[in-house]
């Protein structure tokens, strides 16, 4: 079976690193990664815990398909209670780090307590040690990774670390691995920083850590899965060519691109920051922004963008360390640093994205918070003197400056680092935070796509697109085409998406496979890899169980059904243009039905029958 059956528990307070056997009874109920780590987390942590206190825990978890040839089988997730939201946080990432952890022989690492001084964890197969990181504190992710590899004379070490944002308590700080892959959302990096844990460095050389339960059947299922991905228009063509940025023009046309902090839902300059634009030669230096596409471990899609900024662009002029090929903008980042702030300078957004990778920040929350600051400035609520600069919508200079200040924890960047809800509350306008449960929602406007509105309102980690990606049915027609403006049938479809996504995450593969794969393709691979009987029904029930477990943690943390809501702008201000002109997000029509299909009370609490059915 493809679990290593080993968990590493690291007590940062005492410095003890202790192995323990994986709870295989839980693995049968929660599979791995998101699901299994959430089970561990909720069993061990008080839901009322202060996210930045030593009593909060931080789990790095892989799934049974992580570190296998299953297409996209390289994912790991970081699970904790998020400081941005106060809700369960689970951010997953690709790159190579997750697979390396499995190669070293670990399914999961659980961090508890708080170190008295900066440390990093070095895992070399079965050996784990906490090492002094005082020389790394204050360093960026990029410097940290390079320093650790050099120090141990091993370029094959994989590193996941925080930059200055995580050290400085930026509430949307990310954990970044392999230079530009990130467990990006909900501030998991700030929890790591609060624990004085700078990095996790792993080298795994064990050939015997795990094997597929049925290797031949696994090879066959994996091969079949790859063929389906290659033949699919989205995973075989659109994503490799344009990355997720294939969406910029599409979402703008359907009228669901939140612009200038959601004042508009179409951006007049969307084309200039689109995936297509990344391919075009710049007039300034005659070279395109995009250098090549890139893949994470085991991924046959290759949606990653590797970009280079014009060396004469104002953001990088005279700064050779940014005049490199590095992780370019994906759709959400391009929207957040672009449309949300009304900015159309592709190279400026790319620079902002580089800095997010370099210092470990979530570009979605960062860009959305900058957009909110710009609206507060527009309203005269943030004076120029207080911001230390002018903050008009459309200013690439302001975005670049604020990204830098936030990364370093300087000046007005300290307020940006609190996220949009705290920023807008400080200036008396919490309604201008485009967030749900305190987390900024991403690049799809709930007025244009009603299913996404319901998804934002109900997501267990706050505003988020990758918990129930209703864009698939509402825009792309996967698995069936639903009218984005309609509310009918959205509740049941969203539940199906949320539950399947929980399965995908728990398996350790990438959500993007589901543009081409359904539950049967995933089932065939899990079945061959894992011991036991894994039917589609069992997996979907497992996904639902994970969803409800997260929900119950949030309820115990103090959230109620009243928090399943959206900013007044989405609920009351009609869309100004586009096919959904005049529409608002009709949450009231969908939410009661959603509670019903979930088997929850009208207050949004799982009923005793639902709990029994799910074995909670």
């Amino acid at each position: 079976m493809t679990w290593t059956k080993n968990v590493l528990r690291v007590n940062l307070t005492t410095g003890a690193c202790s192995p323990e056997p994986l709870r295989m009874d839980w693995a049968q109920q929660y599979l791995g990664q998101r699901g299994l780590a959430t089970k561990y987390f909720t069993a061990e942590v008080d839901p009322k815990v202060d996210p930045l206190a030593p009593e909060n825990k931080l789990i790095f978890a892989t799934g049974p398909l992580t570190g296998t040839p299953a297409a996209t089988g390289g994912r790991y997730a970081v699970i904790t209670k998020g400081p941005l939201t106060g809700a369960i946080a689970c951010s997953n990432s690709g790159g190579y780090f997750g697979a390396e952890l499995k190669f070293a022989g670990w399914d999961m690492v659980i961090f508890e307590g708080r170190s008295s001084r900066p440390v990093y964890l070095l895992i070399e197969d079965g050996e784990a040690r906490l090492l002094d990181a005082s020389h790394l504190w204050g360093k960026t992710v990029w410097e940290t990774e390079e320093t650790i590899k050099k120090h141990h004379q091993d370029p094959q070490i994989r590193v996941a670390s925080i930059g200055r944002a995580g050290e400085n308590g930026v509430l949307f700080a990310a954990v970044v691995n392999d230079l530009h892959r990130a467990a990006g959302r909900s501030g998991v990096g700030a929890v790591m920083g609060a624990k004085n844990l700078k990095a996790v460095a792993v080298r795994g050389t064990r050939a015997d850590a795990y094997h597929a339960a049925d290797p031949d059947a696994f090879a066959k299922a994996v091969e079949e899965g790859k063929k389906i991905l290659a033949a699919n228009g989205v995973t075989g063509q659109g994503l490799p060519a344009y990355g997720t940025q294939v969406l910029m023009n599409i979402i703008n046309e359907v009228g669901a691109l939140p612009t200038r902090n959601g004042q508009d839902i179409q951006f007049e300059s969307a084309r200039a920051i689109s995936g297509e634009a990344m391919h075009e030669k710049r007039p300034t230096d005659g070279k395109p922004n995009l250098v090549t596409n890139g893949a994470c471990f085991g991924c046959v899609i290759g949606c990653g963008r590797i970009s280079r900024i014009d060396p004469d662009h104002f953001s990088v002029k005279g700064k050779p360390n940014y005049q490199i090929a590095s992780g370019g903008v994906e759709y959400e980042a391009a929207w957040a640093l672009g449309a949300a702030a009304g900015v159309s300078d592709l190279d400026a957004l790319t620079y902002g994205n580089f800095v997010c990778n370099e210092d470990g920040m979530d570009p979605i929350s960062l860009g959305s918070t900058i957009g909110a600051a710009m609206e507060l400035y527009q309203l005269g609520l943030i004076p120029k003197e207080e911001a230390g600069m002018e903050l008009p919508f459309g200013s690439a200079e302001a975005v670049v400056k604020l990204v830098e200040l936030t990364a370093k924890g300087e000046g007005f960047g300290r307020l940006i680092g609190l996220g949009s809800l705290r920023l807008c509350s400080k200036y008396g306008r919490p309604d201008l935070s485009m967030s749900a449960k305190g987390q900024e929602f991403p690049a799809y406007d709930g007025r244009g796509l009603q299913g996404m509105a319901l998804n934002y309102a109900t997501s267990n980690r706050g505003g988020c697109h990758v918990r129930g990606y209703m864009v698939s049915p509402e825009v792309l027609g996967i698995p069936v085409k639903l009218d984005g403006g309609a509310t009918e049938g959205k509740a049941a479809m969203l539940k199906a998406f949320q539950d399947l996504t929980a399965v995908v995450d728990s398996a350790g593969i990438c959500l993007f496979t589901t543009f081409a794969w359904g539950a049967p393709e995933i089932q065939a691979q899990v079945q061959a890899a894992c011991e036991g009987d894994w039917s589609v029904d069992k997996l979907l029930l497992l996904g639902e169980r994970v969803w409800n477990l997260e929900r119950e943690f949030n309820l115990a943390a103090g959230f109620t059904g009243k928090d399943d809501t959206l900013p007044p702008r989405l609920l009351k201000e009609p869309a100004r243009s586009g096919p959904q002109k005049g529409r608002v997000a009709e949450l009231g029509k969908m939410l009661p039905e959603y509670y019903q299909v979930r088997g929850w009370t009208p207050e949004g609490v799982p009923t005793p029958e639902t709990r029994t059915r799910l074995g909670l």
Partner: protein
Amino acid sequence: MQRSLRIDPNKCTGCLQCEMACAYENYKTYNIARSRIKVIPFEHEGRKVPYTCTQCSEAWCMHACPVEAIVLDPATGAKIVREDVCVGCKVCTIACPFGTVNYVAELGKVQKCDLCGGDPACAKACPTGAITFVDADWTGLGKMRDWAGRTDTNPATV
């Protein structure tokens, strides 16, 4: 007809399916630490380059081996390590100019690409065509085709 691995780094995305396939073919593990082909990242250039043994005709490793543990497989042209003969002295790892023969501490032997007996797993696993297994005498044909395509043979467009 002999075949050679042909590597086109421009097509490599860095997914490491080749490394997993190699490790699995030879050691029945997915751990890429056991792979005989490595994808070398040049992060700041945005390049990933798969690299392995090119099966030199006058192979330095083969000539350097004091116990004749590295031999030619006449069917494939591969220089293969006879594990039962190898004494793990590592002289071949010093002799090879390209670094593509390496020691495996766990086994006490060296290892290198043996072309999987004529059906390389890495080439089969590569999803982008960055690694192919082609006529050994015509590894340049793909490049010739690319350049030929740039030749203007239509006078009307001049």
